[in-house]
């Protein structure tokens, strides 16, 4: 089974080559690749808007763009990156590919709904793209009322419709994962044997299902208010704009965990594989995923300390915010404990793991500052916030996404990539990211507000550093695009299990056959049975 066959054996990639076989596929592995392409595209779109922002901020004067244009740039950067890159990034690509494989299933429970979710995602993306091309939207990615309903004269409705539609894709993906994990595990794959990647996707799916509809109704009501003058958030009628913020953040805070929980799942897999040890405290790491998902729903008001939210509610949300630190810290401590006395090897995915832990730590700890209501009032709407949430939801998520992509790339494509270039890219991204966003902590602490296209001259040095970092970051993202593309067509053939890792996905050929396994797998041991393997060796 592991021997390299002379002609290429049949796999999910070479069974058919027509465009139709891709666009109408119901194979979760092919849909994962469709998502990969879509997500890469929207990442590039969001990156272009970021380029505009960083170029404008090179100089204190607002000389490159009008303030209105700048407002549109950061709005569309946020919308593209949050809704069309970060939220679907890991679940829709790696999750789609790996959830069925890791539990020993032939596919997700609802293959047609899986394909539908990709189309829904792309249609939502096209609406948003159309809004951008027709002149953009300037409300900020949060669409706060009453600005979004009464003042802005940009394409709020079109963008909102795009976001609304893409929400369905998220819901359908989460629904598919939960049903698959419940009903389609292979014999012997009990809950306490599930890879932690599965646990974290399960937890993220809970948020997708219970949170997404609430932001959907909030955005829909904004659109209705613009189109038909219904006035649910209208202060002129006695309505409460803060109600919109409650509805929005009820989802959009947990949404951060939709981004980072799957990333944590990736990190758990990688730490075990490259330390050649079982993850320390499996049950704690597994349950902490559920803990983060649930507690995530109790803290949304910490985005609203400076709105007219009651100060007592602010206190409550502030206290609860600290409790999120507990399951998050459990994970970081347990990964660190896993590394202890492990046989660590520093292949490129592992470099991303260290990058993840570092960035998540900085992002998480600054989150504690911001959770404190008294401090938040001072740094609210400054670059401190911008730096914080980029560290957590962008830095951490992208590190995990890239790490996971490098780790499973041989499985997905059946090809290897250049390890040297991969290491170079990983380090470049880490350096570039910190150079971009660390100065922003200082800028924010010094009082530079977000969402302005000009600033006092004394902030220029830090802004130039940040723009320089963004350039390095851009290079860091471009390099993998090149060597991955090259690898896909020309890379050396990958063996079934290049990392010597445990897990069902490594026990099938690379790339996997159509229904994932040539013989239906039966699970007889817990996840990460590296110790036993070493004992045998």
């Amino acid at each position, binding site marked *: 089974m592991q021997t390299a066959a002379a002609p290429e054996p049949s796999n999910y990639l070479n069974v058919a080559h027509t465009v139709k076989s891709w666009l109408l596929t119901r194979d979760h592995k092919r849909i994962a690749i469709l998502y990969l392409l879509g997500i890469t595209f929207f990442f590039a779109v969001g990156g272009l808007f970021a380029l505009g922002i960083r170029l404008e901020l090179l100089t204190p004067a607002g000389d490159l763009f009008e303030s209105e244009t700048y407002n549109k740039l950061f709005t569309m950067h946020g919308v593209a990156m949050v809704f069309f890159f970060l939220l679907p990034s890991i679940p829709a690509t790696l999750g789609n590919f790996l959830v069925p494989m890791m539990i020993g299933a032939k596919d997700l429970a609802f293959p047609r709904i899986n394909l539908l979710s990709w189309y829904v995602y792309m249609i939502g993306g096209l609406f948003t793209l159309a809004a951008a091309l027709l002149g953009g939207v300037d409300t900020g990615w949060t669409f706060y009322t009453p600005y979004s309903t009464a003042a802005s004269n940009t394409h709020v409705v079109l963008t909102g419709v795009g976001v609304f539609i893409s929400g369905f894709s998220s819901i359908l993906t989460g629904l598919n994962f939960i049903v698959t994990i*419940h009903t389609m595990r292979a014999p012997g794959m009990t809950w306490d044997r599930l890879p932690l990647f599965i646990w974290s996707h399960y937890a993220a799916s809970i948020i997708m299902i*219970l949170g997404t509809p609430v932001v959907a109704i909030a955005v829909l009501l904004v659109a209705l208010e613009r189109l038909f003058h219904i006035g649910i958030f209208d202060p002129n009628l006695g309505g409460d704009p803060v109600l919109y913020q*409650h509805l929005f953040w009820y989802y959009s805070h947990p949404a951060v965990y939709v981004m980072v929980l799957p990333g944590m799942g990736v990190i758990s897999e990688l730490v075990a594989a490259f330390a050649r040890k079982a993850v320390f405290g499996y049950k704690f790491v597994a349950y902490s995923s559920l803990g983060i998902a649930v507690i995530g729903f109790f803290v949304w008001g910490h985005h609203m300390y400076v709105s*007219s*939210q*009651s*100060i*007592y509610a602010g206190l409550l949300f502030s206290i609860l915010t600290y409790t999120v630190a507990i399951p998050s810290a459990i994970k970081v401590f347990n990964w660190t404990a896993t590394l202890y006395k492990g046989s660590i090897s520093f292949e490129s995915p592992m470099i991303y793991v260290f990058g993840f832990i570092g960035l998540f730590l900085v992002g998480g700890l600054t989150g504690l500052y911001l959770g404190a209501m008294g401090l938040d009032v001072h740094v609210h709407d400054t670059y401190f916030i911008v730096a914080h949430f980029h560290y957590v939801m962008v830095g951490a998520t992208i590190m995990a996404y890239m790490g996971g992509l490098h780790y499973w790339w041989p499985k997905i494509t059946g090809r290897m990539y250049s390890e040297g270039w991969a290491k170079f890219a990983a380090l470049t991204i880490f350096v570039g990211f910190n150079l971009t966003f660390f100065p922003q902590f200082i800028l924010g602490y010094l009082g530079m507000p977000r969402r302005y296209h000009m600033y006092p001259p004394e902030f220029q040095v830090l802004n130039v550093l940040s723009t320089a970092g963004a350039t390095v970051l851009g290079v860091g993202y471009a390099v993998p695009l090149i060597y991955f593309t090259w690898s896909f067509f020309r890379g050396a053939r990958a063996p079934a299990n290049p990392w010597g890792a445990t897990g069902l996905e490594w026990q099938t050929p690379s790339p996997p056959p159509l229904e994932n396994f040539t013989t239906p797998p039966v699970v007889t041991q817990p996840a990460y049975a590296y110790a036993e393997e070493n004992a045998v060796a």
Partner: protein
Amino acid sequence: MVEHTQHVAPVRLYVVVFLALLVLTFLTVGVTYVDMGEYNLFVALGIAIFKASLVILYFMHARWSPRLVQIVMLTSLLFIGILASFSFADYLTRGLLGVPGR
């Protein structure tokens, strides 16, 4: 393997549930015209919850559904509760400080 789980309820049961729903609808309209002060709202909601429970338990077969499905139902209600109670943690404590906007 799991046994065939589908439960076929007798038609008679459906008829009884329907008649109960019909009676409750007339009841809820009727009690609206009786002055019970604030309790009118709670009676109306109580009847609505009872009607909804009948539909869920019998028409939607929740009574015979797997435990997991029942957990999904209760979880969604719980999360509605979180949305409402934490939003009202704000609304009910606004203005306690006597400072406008706080």
